[in-house]
């Protein structure tokens, strides 16, 4: 079997919610023999979204979280679950999903960042199209849950209800979780896959505006839960972090020490001033010269030619000097 997912970022195995859910389910159920591939495009998926799974025995394709999980369950890869699983998953999805979706694809401050994340993982020329499918999905969410459109001005984005629901849900998870390792009775369940995926995205993504992250950070046990599960089930080379993000993180850490890493030393600034002044004056004089606002005439040539009237004074002066 082969599973196709988006490549990860920020030390996560994948950047996408559903991909993370499936990956975690596979780890929780301890399914061997699934090859995880990140070199893929949503173009080959039936619904235009990753993840999808190809069953190598009959080449059948299963797209989307639910279909994949149902297939895996049919194949016998089940987790000993309580019957509450379904209800919990539904409750969490209903409360967290809309606001997370809005944060990722609706908030104008974050949209560039998230789109770039998805676009970088989609091959050309599909990278121009498929990330926008998520934005359209987010538009549907907003219209259904909060009655506004993403095309409305930002001030009309009424996310209060979504936000409150999501934060209440985070509190609920934090309370129920306590210090346990897994969500229900300390044993691995399907609901853990869902909670891990949501929390991982909320806690690990670095977005310009991430309200849920600051809220989730207040509940210490949530980040502990995510870190524990990540360490337990995913090894280092399954998680991914790009050089750019690494550099950013490094910079952030340095910032803590010195306080002003962003500012250049004064010598750099002076150099920059001089350089820009030079370039500006070259441009100005160049323009003036070529458009004929002034001429540069070399004095020696003038003496050979017939003296022009306008330069007579100058000629007189040089003549006098010779004498």
């Amino acid at each position, binding site marked *: 079997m082969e599973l196709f997912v988006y490549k990860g970022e920020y030390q996560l195995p994948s950047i996408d919610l559903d991909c993370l859910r499936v990956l975690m389910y596979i780890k929780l159920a301890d399914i061997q023999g699934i090859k995880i591939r990140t070199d893929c495009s949503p173009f080959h998926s039936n619904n235009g979204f990753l993840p999808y799974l190809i069953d190598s025995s009959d080449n059948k394709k299963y797209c*989307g979280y*639910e279909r994949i999980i149902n297939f895996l369950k049919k194949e016998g890869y089940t987790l000993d679950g309580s*019957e509450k699983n*379904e209800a919990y998953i539904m409750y969490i999805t209903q409360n967290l999903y809309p606001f997370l979706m809005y944060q990722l694809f609706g908030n104008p401050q974050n949209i560039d960042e998230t789109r770039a994340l998805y676009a970088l993982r989609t091959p050309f020329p599909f990278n121009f199209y498929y990330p926008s499918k998520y934005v359209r999905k987010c538009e549907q969410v907003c219209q259904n849950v909060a009655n506004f459109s993403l095309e409305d001005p930002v001030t009309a984005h009424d996310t*209060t209800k979504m936000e*409150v629901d999501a934060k*209440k849900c985070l*509190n609920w998870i934090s309370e129920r979780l306590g210090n346990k390792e897994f969500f229900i009775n300390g044993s691995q369940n399907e609901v853990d896959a869902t909670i891990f995926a949501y929390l991982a995205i909320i806690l690990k993504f670095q977005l310009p505006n991430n309200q849920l992250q600051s809220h989730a950070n207040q509940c210490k046990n949530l980040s502990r839960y995510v870190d524990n599960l990540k360490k337990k089930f995913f090894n280092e080379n399954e998680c991914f972090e790009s050089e750019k993000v690494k550099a950013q993180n490094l910079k952030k850490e340095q910032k803590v020490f010195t306080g002003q890493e962003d500012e250049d030393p004064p010598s750099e600034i002076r150099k920059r001033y001089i350089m820009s002044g030079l370039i500006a004056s070259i441009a100005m004089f160049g323009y003036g010269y070529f458009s004929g606002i002034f001429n540069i005439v070399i004095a020696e040539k003038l003496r050979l030619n017939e003296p022009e009237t306008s330069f007579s004074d100058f000629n007189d002066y040089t003549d006098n000097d010779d004498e």
Partner: protein
Amino acid sequence: MAKSTINQLYLNMNELDRVEMNEKIIIYQPYDEVQILLAENASCLAVKTYLKMLNRDFTVKSCANAEFMAPSGKRTKLPVVQIGNFIAAEFDPIINLFEHKSMSLTENFEAEDKDDLVTYMSLVDMILTNTELYISWCDELVLKEITKKRNGSVYPFPLNHIQNSRKRYAVIKQLRFYDWANLTFEEVVDKVDKLCQTLVAKLGDRDYFFGSNPTELDALVFGHLFCIFTMELPSSVSLLKETINKYSQLTQFCGRIEKKYFGKIKN
């Protein structure tokens, strides 16, 4: 933690405080016999059952435009409930109101039971409402034979077609949001089947889901299942009814609640 501010915001204390609970309760809904659709009927019945469980009297007013009176609500937007100045649509805000006034059925519940209640309710609400909407608006036969006739019945000629397609568009959009629009009928029934198993496991051999006293969940489940049982549906979708009928605990459960709260009307 940031919790207190959240609760405050969510319940919107001031507004709820001002509601006078001894005022008359009026429920607005579409015409029972000719207009109402499966999902709307279910959510209306759930609210009525809930109020009966609370021993509150209410008046039902039928009007064609009930749906357009709703101030909020994201699914069927029905029924619209008026208590004095307080107007709300759908099941959730009404439960919130009674909970805020400490008059709900689950006042003395343990935290864990309350969790179960909330999660099961969101599961039941989502799956059964979606199923009903799917049956009414995505099954060709039901759409042609029942839904279009009923929904259009209160409008004059050209308007009925416009209203039908407008509403169908809205419903499909809703279903697409829940990833339900592209499911086959068998997959839908499969989901209902799974839900029934979960509910039966929760119910056990007790009278109600949480012991011997009714709760919001009972009202909700009864509202939905009873409507699916009693609605006349063409044979192409009878599989749904049969699936639920397999679970005798659930049919008995519905009969029990019907007898207790609605017995007088029938006799």
